[in-house]
């Protein structure tokens, strides 16, 4: 029997795997991609950590203060304290297992200042930080003989008497539906910004599969309306240009080359200022020309290449046209600091979870810190909570037969409405109406559209009837998950009649003390129930 089954092979999943494997347990990582293809590789700017350096003015208290300020009173203080208190050890651990952090002239780990931060706090590896952290984790997982099940997609959780028993999943290569049983399950599948199809910096894999599956088995999800828009993605392609570009001194300018916002203000403030300019008919550009080619090539080689490859523009010579794009989702499966959900032995960690560490907005550099800090903590907790005296029954659960039938039925759907068209429409609709500026009337219009699409789902389907690596099938399941999840997002956004952090309502422009709490959503008898708690 597997002791810990981890769903998702990004930074959160792999740090949980490394931690639980240390205890000599059977650990398996299942992922719908290959391990190094996850969203973590796109984190560029850095990972926050307060380091013991001479002349440094930064403190854990300042990090805590910045994080709390960004959370706008709806963060969980204990969770934030835990992350900030341990950041020095977290960075040290990463450095010890081989993450090649850039160094400064005193042989210390180099740090840069990101938006919303009072100090230079983000440790980095040029602008490939997430990539290098992820690959270092993968190398360590291989060294520690952690077993991987690649290209298997989570379908459902198997739960009996409010205790997790395992999962059902789809083998993407063979279309076989399988059941995998485990004493504990950690979900670390990333966020749901992929819902903003065509308007997101995220990987196509960020479809919130586990959050939808968690709702189906009675888990609560929270703060789903909180979606962070990154201020600087390349206009058109939405390729991310890291915050390090502004951290290193880049400007944001209009077409008349005028600066109009503090470039290092919080992401939601900068993103809204940019979109306002764009909606008024202006254009917005990232201007790094004054930094010079040497500094650009040294500190942001990836950004230089991206601008060149995707826009045919040179960062040291040209203005780079940008737009905000959906980047990070603060909401997710409701957990405590230890990743525990309301299903026993089912844990969630990283972007798919909502443990209160980000509240209403995430501080730049805190996402990598979150996944490593809590990945380790949740991995440890999962092991500690296994009751060795308990009987773990190996049998075929009913869910397996149900899901086999579900997948077989998808092959029979009429496919008279093309879901690729709806997926595209849904992305645009969400960007325009559930984006940086929201209002009741438009949110309700989106809800109506979602209900129509839900009804139409039985008329959609797949045209590829092959059982071998059927991406048409995989994408349809992802689309269905996104559609099912979208209602929770919009209902939460309607419910929060105020503006706070990343959630901005043009019909309620101020923060309202009444709403200084989490939005909780559960699904009962197919109905979405929302409450503030």
């Amino acid at each position, binding site marked *: 029997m597997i002791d810990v089954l981890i769903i998702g092979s990004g930074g959160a999943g792999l740090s949980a795997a490394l931690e639980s494997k240390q205890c000599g347990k059977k650990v398996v990582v299942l992922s719908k991609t290959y391990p190094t*293809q996850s969203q973590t590789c*796109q984190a560029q700017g850095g990972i926050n950590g307060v380091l013991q350096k001479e002349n440094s003015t930064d403190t854990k208290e300042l990090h805590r203060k910045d994080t709390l300020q960004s959370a706008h009173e709806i963060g969980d203080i204990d969770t934030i304290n835990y992350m900030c208190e341990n950041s020095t050890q977290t960075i040290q651990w990463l450095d010890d297992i081989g993450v090649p952090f850039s160094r*400064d002239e005193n042989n210390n780990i180099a740090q840069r200042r990101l938006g919303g931060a009072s100090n230079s706090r983000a440790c980095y590896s040029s602008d490939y930080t997430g990539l*290098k952290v992820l690959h270092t984790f993968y190398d360590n997982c291989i060294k520690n003989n952690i077993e991987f099940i690649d290209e298997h997609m989570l379908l459902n959780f198997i739960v009996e008497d409010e205790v997790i028993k395992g999962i059902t999943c789809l083998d993407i290569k063979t279309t076989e539906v399988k059941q995998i049983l485990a004493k504990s399950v950690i979900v670390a599948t990333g966020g749901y910004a992929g819902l903003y199809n065509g308007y997101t910096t995220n990987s196509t894999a960020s479809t919130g599969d586990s959050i939808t599956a968690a709702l189906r088995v009675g888990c609560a999800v929270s703060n789903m309306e909180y979606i962070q828009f990154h201020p600087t993605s390349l206009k058109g392609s939405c390729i991310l240009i890291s915050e390090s570009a502004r951290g290193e001194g880049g400007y944001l300018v209009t077409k008349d080359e005028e600066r109009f916002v503090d470039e290092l203000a919080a992401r939601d403030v900068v993103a809204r200022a940019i979109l306002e300019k764009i909606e008024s008919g202006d254009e917005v550009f990232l201007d790094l020309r004054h930094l010079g080619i040497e500094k650009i090539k040294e500190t942001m080689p990836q950004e230089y290449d991206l601008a060149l490859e*995707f826009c045919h523009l040179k960062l040291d010579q040209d203005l780079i046209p940008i737009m905000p794009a959906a980047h990070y989702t603060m909401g997710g499966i409701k957990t405590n600091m230890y990743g525990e959900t309301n299903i026993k032995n089912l844990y969630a960690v990283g972007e798919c979870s909502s443990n209160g560490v980000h509240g209403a907005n995430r501080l730049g550099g805190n996402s990598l810190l979150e996944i490593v800090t809590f990945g380790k903590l949740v991995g440890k907790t999962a092991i500690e909570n296994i009751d060795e005296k308990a009987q773990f029954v190996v049998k075929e659960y009913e869910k397996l037969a149900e899901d086999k039938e579900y997948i077989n039925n998808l092959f029979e759907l009429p496919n008279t409405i093309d879901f690729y068209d709806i997926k595209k429409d849904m992305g645009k609709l969400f960007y325009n109406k559930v984006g940086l500026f929201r209002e009741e009337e438009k949110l309700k219009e989106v809800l109506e559209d979602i209900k129509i699409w839900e009804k139409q789902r039985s008329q959609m389907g797949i045209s590829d009837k092959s059982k071998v690596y059927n991406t*048409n099938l995989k994408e349809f399941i992802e689309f269905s998950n996104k559609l099912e999840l979208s209602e929770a997002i919009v209902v939460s956004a309607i419910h929060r009649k105020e503006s706070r952090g990343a959630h901005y309502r043009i019909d309620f422009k101020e923060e309202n003390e009444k709403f200084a709490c989490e939005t909780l959503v559960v699904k009962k008898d197919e109905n979405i129930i929302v409450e503030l708690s």
Partner: protein
Amino acid sequence: MATITICEKEYSLDSIENKVDNLLQILNHVKATQNHSLAFRSGCRSGVCGSCAVRVNGVEKLACKSHIKDGDIVEPLKNTEVIKDLVVDLSAQEKFLRESKASLDTKGDEPITIQDEKNIDLQSNCILCNSCFSSCPVYEVNPNFKGPFALTRTYRYVNDKKESNIKDKIDAVQTDGVWDCTLCGNCNMVCPEHIDIKNDIMMLRNKSAQLGYTDPNMANFDSGFDAGMDFGFNPNGF
């Protein structure tokens, strides 16, 4: 109107919006509008997840970073089984990395300087896209060859000042490893991160020689001289 061939099937591109010529966008467009069953991998769309490597006119490229033109031919990577269309079996990747001991084994206490990190910066940009693996001619004769990405990753750790146990890694890359490379440089030509893999393999040969290993190809050659003969072994790493 333009035509491209994807896995031996021609597609017309006259309906592409905004004259997009990015290959990944074209694959997505073809899949959504012309052939829902077309299989390919993709992820980040920005060249860092390594999932979308294919061959364009025979040369390995990341679809998300490639610009294509009328008449181009798109095929799957080589040297491994094609599962469907542009999707190939990548299961050998983990095996090669495991065999090559490409990870930090025993951390030493020496301080790390700016230059120390720069020495391994490029190699640690590897995105495991498998382009080098596909381009490597050695696999035609030796399917067990640990290959370019695994060897360059081993070198990244051998050259890491944090590592105090280099010998284990060098031992690990002797069989089906550094001496099996023909130094043809194909891998360098196709690496989207511009890693000098050939040089890394030559540096591993140098380290091997320092630890007393010799080129087995030379050992089998008993003519008694090697002047003017190029067997790919260059102890100076030029």
